[in-house]
């Protein structure tokens, strides 16, 4: 058990190193550099050259990379040249709002998605299944910005019961979380449905029926739990995706999250901030996946942590 957790941690570290390396290379492959963008179009070639030396971007890429890795190991993530603060502080400043939004959206997606998927999967190709299928396709097809604007129109402008933008209170959280939850709910519902209808073919379902259980009792008491492994996997992955990928929703609702910070940092070539954000998101995703892995063995006793095959 301890050995296998250690192995997972080591693997997680390896994944994070891979992420940082990829981001480090990709962002430097993009045209334009910090000096040109920071000094603006009026700067002379000499000024730019001097700034490049000062920022350390004149060194060979390989040396920059090595010195960056060395600093990361001592938990020094560099300075944001744009904000003038340590890069990780800027990221951590935005992280709680983003995390809150992602968790809220995923909670809605899990509750609504599993419910819809269970209702649909209990009787594949029935009427309810078709209705739920069209519903989830619509949920997934609406563009996020449009859903956000529609929700603002209805609940903020028309009904005046929820704030349209900003953050701080629970009511500020509702609209952006619901908007973000739309496509995620569809993903969870569809996955639950397909996993459930597959499990419905298993022999133990007939055994459950032979005990005189009603179909809902069979579904909830026997099938649901055995169909949850793919759902747990996708929820872990999607939560990670929401951490950095909620830019549109953050913009529509003026939500002070990580996504907008990353986008502005990329356009400003603020390498330190982008790298710090990538590192943090990678760490969270690795952790979430570990939690998902640990959940598998709770769902299916045949999967033992660190156990023999």
């Amino acid at each position: 058990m301890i050995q296998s957790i250690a192995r997972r941690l080591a693997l997680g570290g390896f994944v994070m190193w891979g992420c940082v390396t990829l981001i480090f290379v990709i962002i430097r492959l993009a045209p334009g550099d910090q000096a040109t963008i920071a000094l603006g179009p009026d700067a002379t070639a000499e000024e730019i050259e001097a700034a490049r030396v000062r920022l350390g971007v004149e060194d060979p890429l390989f040396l920059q990379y090595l010195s960056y890795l060395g600093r990361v190991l001592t938990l020094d993530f560099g300075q944001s040249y744009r904000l003038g603060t340590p890069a990780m502080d800027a990221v951590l400043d935005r992280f709680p709002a983003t995390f809150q939004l992602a968790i809220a959206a995923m909670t809605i997606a899990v509750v609504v998605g599993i419910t819809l998927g269970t209702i649909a999967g209990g009787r594949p190709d029935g009427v309810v299944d078709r209705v739920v299928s069209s519903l989830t396709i619509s949920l997934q097809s609406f563009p996020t910005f449009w859903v956000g604007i529609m929700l603002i129109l209805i609940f903020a402008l028309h009904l005046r019961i929820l704030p349209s933008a900003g953050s701080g209170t629970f009511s500020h959280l509702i609209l952006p979380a619901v908007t973000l939850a739309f496509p995620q709910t569809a993903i969870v519902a569809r996955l639950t449905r397909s996993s459930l209808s597959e499990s419905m073919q298993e022999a133990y379902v007939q055994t459950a029926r032979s005990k005189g259980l009603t179909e809902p009792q069979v579904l909830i008491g026997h099938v649901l739990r055995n169909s949850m492994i793919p759902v747990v996997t996708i929820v872990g992955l999607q939560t990670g995706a929401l951490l950095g990928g909620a830019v549109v929703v953050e913009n529509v609702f003026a939500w002070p999250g990580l996504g907008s910070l990353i986008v502005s940092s990329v356009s400003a070539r603020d390498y330190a901030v982008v790298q710090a954000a990538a590192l943090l998101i990678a760490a969270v995703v690795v952790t979430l996946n570990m939690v998902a892995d640990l959940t598998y063995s709770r769902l299916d006793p045949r999967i033992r942590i660190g156990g023999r095959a």
Partner: protein
Amino acid sequence: MSADMTPEDTGPLLDVRDLEVVLPGPDGPVRILDRVSFTVGAGRTTGLIGESGSGKSMTAMAIIGLLPRDAQTRGELRWRSEDLLTATPRRRRRVRGREIAMIFQDPLASLNPGQTIGRQITEIPRRDGMPRRELGSTAVDLLERVEIPDPARRANNYPHQFSGGMRQRAMTALALAGKPQLILADEPTTALDVTVQARILALLRRLRDEEGTAMLLVSHDLRVMAHVADDLVVMYAGQVCERGPAPDVLRRPFHPYTNALVKSVPAVHAKSAIADPLPGSPANPAERPSGCAFHPRCPLTRIMAQGVSSANAIGTPPIHERCRTEQPEVREISPGRWSACHFSSEEAVR
């Protein structure tokens, strides 16, 4: 002995009358079961035997009411005095598990991998409101009755921690939990090693003797039947071809198909015994042959045909005209012995 044989005397527990099951197939509806009739007496074990595709498992599924949703049924399933086929879904559900229980073929696949054995076998009493404390002792008691050693510890195990034989015992305990009067056992020993098979059969026999539970045993294995069955129902292509007391049917079959089945079993104790396998492959209910479904494989019809017309071309074995055109009725040949062969009464069966 023959007194409790006749259904009229005691009234059978289960009386299957002209049961028909029609399933949609790729080329139109298929009559999987065709006018299947037999009875199961209280406390008796009735064996349902036939090759794969003969409809024996389908019969069991029809009795417990777990046919595919698109199946159509006709006929009667008289359970004591009510017809289960016309009962309400709610009533049918109440019968399931509590009056008629089922033991499934593959005990590993048929047990929920995510629940402990104890939880699974006590689900019926739990749903009926038994308090948690009593559930624990009920689980131990059930496992004890199916002879699982160390039942208190084993109740907390998951199915994958059980051996094949123990899983089938657990499955049996699960069936006993609702105190049913009839247990349907669908190939309960097929997935098991031969040595384990014998012990499971001994257990089933003991349960019949000690608890008086009637059983419908579905199997393709004649040796299993010889061990356990009191009565025998032989099925072919979704139809009953012979039924009667098991020892009599096995000793002197009236139907050529039963005869062929008995001959195809090698006698283990006799050194020189060579099994006489049945030629051809089982008839498919979707393409049931005309007349008697067994006629394309039947040795008897060839003998009978020779008696009628002595001149026959070499290479094409003659088929008796009646077997090819006329579907035989299941007739009572001698008291308690029923057979669906035009020539069952003839001496030629022997």
